[in-house]
C-alpha cells in the first residue's frame, strides 16, 4: 500500500481528501502545516507528498524546498495543490522542487492522474 503525506490546514478539505485517497487504496497521513509535515517525515517515509501552499507556521513552498534540501535521496514525489494559481505561483512551486502543481479546485480525476503520473502506475 502506497503512503501519502497530506499537508493541509483546512480541516474539511483534509477530511474529504483523506476519505477519497483512503478509498483509493492509499495510506494517508495528514499534517496541518509544513512544520508538522517535517516532524512527521523524521520517522515516516511516504511515497508521495501532497501539500497546500498557504498555511500557517510553514507554507508549502518552504516545506518543498526543505525536503528537497534535507532529503535528496530517494527523492519523494511532491504534488502541490494550491488555491494560488497564477503562472508565477506555478513557476515558484516547480522551482521549489515540486513535481506537479495542481490548482484548487481540481477534479478527483485530475488528482488521480497526477498521483498516477508521479507514482508510475
Amino acid at each position, binding site marked *: 500500500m502506497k503512503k501519502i503525506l497530506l499537508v493541509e*490546514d*483546512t*480541516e*474539511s*478539505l483534509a*477530511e*474529504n*481528501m483523506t*476519505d*477519497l485517497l483512503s*478509498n483509493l487504496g492509499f495510506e494517508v497521513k495528514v499534517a*496541518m502545516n509544513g512544520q508538522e509535515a517535517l516532524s512527521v517525515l523524521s520517522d515516516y517515509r511516504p511515497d508521495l507528498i501532497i501539500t497546500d501552499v*498557504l498555511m*500557517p*507556521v510553514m507554507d508549502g513552498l518552504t516545506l518543498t524546498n526543505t525536503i528537497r534540501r534535507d532529503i535528496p535521496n530517494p527523492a519523494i514525489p511532491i504534488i502541490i*495543490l494550491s*488555491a*494560488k*494559481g497564477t503562472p508565477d505561483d506555478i513557476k515558484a512551486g516547480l522551482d521549489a522542487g515540486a513535481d506537479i502543481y495542481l*490548482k*484548487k*479546485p*481540481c*477534479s*478527483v*480525476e485530475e*488528482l488521480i492522474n497526477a498521483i498516477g503520473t508521479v507514482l508510475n502506475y
Partner: protein
Amino acid sequence: MVVEMKTSGSQQGKSCDMKTDSVFARSKSSHFMTKHGFLLLLAAMAFLILIFKQDSFLTAVMPGIAFVIGGSMLSGSIFIFLFTKQQADPVATVDDDTTKLNVAQNEDPDRGRLDFILDSLNDVFWSFDLTGKGDNYLSHSAERLYGRPVSELAKEPFFWAHYIHPDDIHLQESSHRSLCEEGKSECTYRIVDHNKIVRWIYCRKRAIRDNSGSIVRIEGVSTDVSYLRQAEAIIEKQELQINAVVDNLDMAILIVNRVGKILLINKEAQESNRRNNRTVQVGMNFFDLLSPERRISRQTIFENIFNSKSTINQVVDYPDKDGVVHYYSVYYIPVLGSNGEVEQICIMSRDITSQRLAEEKIREKTELLRTVIDNLPDYVYVKDSALRQVINNKVNLKSLRTAGDDTLCRRTSGYFPYETTEKLIIDDQNILDTGIPIVDKEEEVIDNEGRKHWLLTTKVPLKNQEGEVTGIVSISRDITERKHMELSLNMSNERFEMATRATDDAIWDWDLVTDEAYLGENFKELFGYDWGKARVNVSEWSKRIHPDDRDRVLRSLEAVLESPGCQNKWQIEYRYICANGTVAHVCDRAFVLCDESGQPVRMIGAMQNITEVVEHREYLEQKVSERTKELNLALETQKEMVEAKSRFVSIASHEFRTPLSAIQFASGFLRKFHGRIKSADLERKLEGIEKQVVLMTALLDDILVIGKCEAGKLKTNPVSINVIEFLDKIANDIMNTKGVDHKIVRKYNVPRLVLVSDEKFLRNTFINLLTNAIKFSPGKDSVNLEVELPGDCVRIRVADQGIGISDSDLTSIFDPFQRGSNVNGIDGTGLGLSIVKKAVEALGGEISVISKEGMGSEFTVKLPVS
C-alpha cells in the same frame, strides 16, 4: 687896465726887435678910414663874424650867444678904427692932466667927437711914453674900472700892475716878452678892481720904436670882457651838455655843411664807423666816406633839401663788415642860415634792424593770425569804436557778400535783414558802452532768404592801455545744424521722459564709456531710490542687486556686452533690494547700442517689478506642488487601494477555492464510490458540502461589507441607543445560540448610558468580537464584557482567556484575511476584525487589542459620547 711894463718890461724891451706890423701899415691910409670909417666898421664886423662862424657851429645853434660874440667883435673893430685914427692924427698927446685933453678936444672938432666916443665906450685906451719926454694918454673909462680919477692914474704909468690877479702875473710877463720880440701882443688876464671884484681884461698893445730901434712908447686898449667870459663859460657848459646829450643818443648824428664837410660828429656815429673799420672826424668830408653810387644818391638828397628846405627821411641798408645787413632810418634835417638858405644839414641815423625784424615778425604773426581766422568756420570780425568793421575773416566777408579787403568801414552787413542787423548792433553798442563781454550767447537770426539760423556768439571788448574800450571782437558760429539736432534730441528726450512716466517700469540709460547711468524716476516709486534726473555711477544700481543674484546678473551683462553685434538684447530676472530693505523681484530687459566701430557705448533698459507676479507664481507653484503631492498621495492611495483590492480579490478568490475544493472532492467521492457508500457516510458528506456552502455564503457577505467599506459607501444612521440594554440583548442572543457553551460575564461600571450611534454597525461589531472571543477560547466557559465611562468617551471591553494572538500576527490582525497562525482548524473568513475596525472608525471611535498567545485577548472599543 692896460699894458704892462714893469721894471722887467724895460729890460726886455731893449732886447726886443720891434718891427712895423700890418696895423701900422694900415695907419697910413688913416685919412681914408676917417672918411669912410662906418663902412669899414661894417666890413670888419662882417669879416669877423664870418671867421667866427667858421670856427664854431654855435652861431647857428645859438644865435643869442652869437650876438654877444658879435658885440665883442664890434668893440674890436672900433678899437682898430680908433687906433688908426690916433696914428693918423697924432693928437693923442696926453698932457699931464685931462684938462689938456679937454682943451685939445675943444680945439679940434674931430678930436672932440673922438673923445666923446672914447669916453662913452667901456674900453680903456691908453698910450704911455717911455722916454719921459712925451705925453701919456688914458681914456676916461679907466675911472669906472679902477675907481680913481684919470688925472691921478695918468701920472702913474704902472698903476695897473697893482690890480693884476696874483695868479695871472705870469701872463703879463709872457705878454711883455711878445711885445718886445714882435712889437705887439695881446692877452687876457684877471684884475681885482677897487670893489674887490674879479674882472677879466682883454688887452692888446703895441710898442713904438725910434730910429735906433728902442721902444719909446707903448699903447693899447684894454677891454673889460668879464661878461663875455661869463657868456663863454655858459656857452661852454651848454656845449658840453649838448655834446653829452648828442654823444649819448643812440642815433648817429653828423652835421655837415653844404659841401659835406663834417662839422660835428657824435660818439655813436664815430663808433658805428669804427665798427666798420673807419675813422671819421670833424673836418672830413661826408661824401668821401661813401661809395660812388651812394655818393650820387646823397648829393641828390642834398640838392632836394637845398630846394625844398624840408626834412627827408629814408631807410637805407648797409651791410656791416661781417656782411650782415643792417637797416637804418636816416633823417636829413636842413639847418637854415640867417639868409634863409640851407646852411647845414643834420644827418641823424638810427639802426632799426631789430625793429625791422620785430616788425617782420609781427607781420608774420599777423599773417598767421589772419590765416587762422580766415580758415575758421566761424564768423569773425573786429569793429572799431565807431562800429566800423575793421577786420573780417573770409567767412564773415562772405556773409557780408563782399569780396576783397576787410577795411570796409561799414556798420552793418548785407547778409541779414534790417531787424536782425539792428539786433546785432545793439549788442555791439552795449559792449562799447559797458565793456562787458558777451560769452556764448545763442542767437536766433533770420537771413535775407528767410532761413532761420542759430548763432553761438562771443563778443569781447578791445581795450587800450587806459582801459578804454576801443572796439570789439566778435566770433559767431553757425550752430543751426547742432541746434536742430538738439531740438530733435530734446523732443526725443521729452518723449523718452513721457514714456518713462507712462510706464510702470524703471527706465535706465547706462553710458558704458563713463560708467554713468541715468536711473529713471520710477526707481523712486518702485524701489524707493530717488536719484532725480542726475546721472550716477552705475554701481549705485548694481550694488543693490540681491547678493545671491549679483554675480549671475553681472556675468550675464558681461556676456551680452562681449557678444558681437549691435542692439543685442538682454533679459534677466533677479532680486533687487529696495530702500526700505524689502526685496523686489524684477525682470530687467535692455538692449546695447554701439558706436560706428561696433564698440558698445550705451545700454538702455527697463526694470519691471514682477514681485507680485513672482509671488503669485510661487503661490501657484506651491499650490501645484501641494496638489501634485495630494494627487500623488491620492494616486498612491488609489494605487494602493487598487492593489489592495486586487490582493483582496486574489485572496478572496483563494479563500473560495479551498471550500470549493472540499465540495469538489466530496462530490467526486460520492460519484466514484456511490455504489458502496454507507448511508452514514453519505449523510456526513452532504453535511460537509452544506457546511462549505454556508461558509462561502458568510464569506461572500463579509466581502460585500468590506467592498462597501472600501467604496466609502458605509452610511451611518445614528439613533439613540441605551448601551446596557443593547449589549445585554446581544449577549443573551449569543448565549442562546445552539452550540454556544460560554457564558458572557458582563460588568457595567455605568448604570445607564445612551449613545447616539448606528445600531447596525454597533451590533455587528460586538457580535463579531463576542463570537470571536468564544470561538478562540475553546475549552473555556466564559468571556467578559465590560463597559466603563472614563470621561468624554465610553470604553467597551471584550476579553477572553483563549489561544491569544502571537506578537508577529498582532500587527496585521485587523487586515483582511489575516488569521492567527494558531487558529488550528477554527473556521473563519479572516475578515471579521477587518470589518469591525472599519465599522468602529465609521462611528468615530477606535479599536485596540492586547493579547498574548495562549493567554487570551482583550479588544477595547472606544466610542465618543456626543
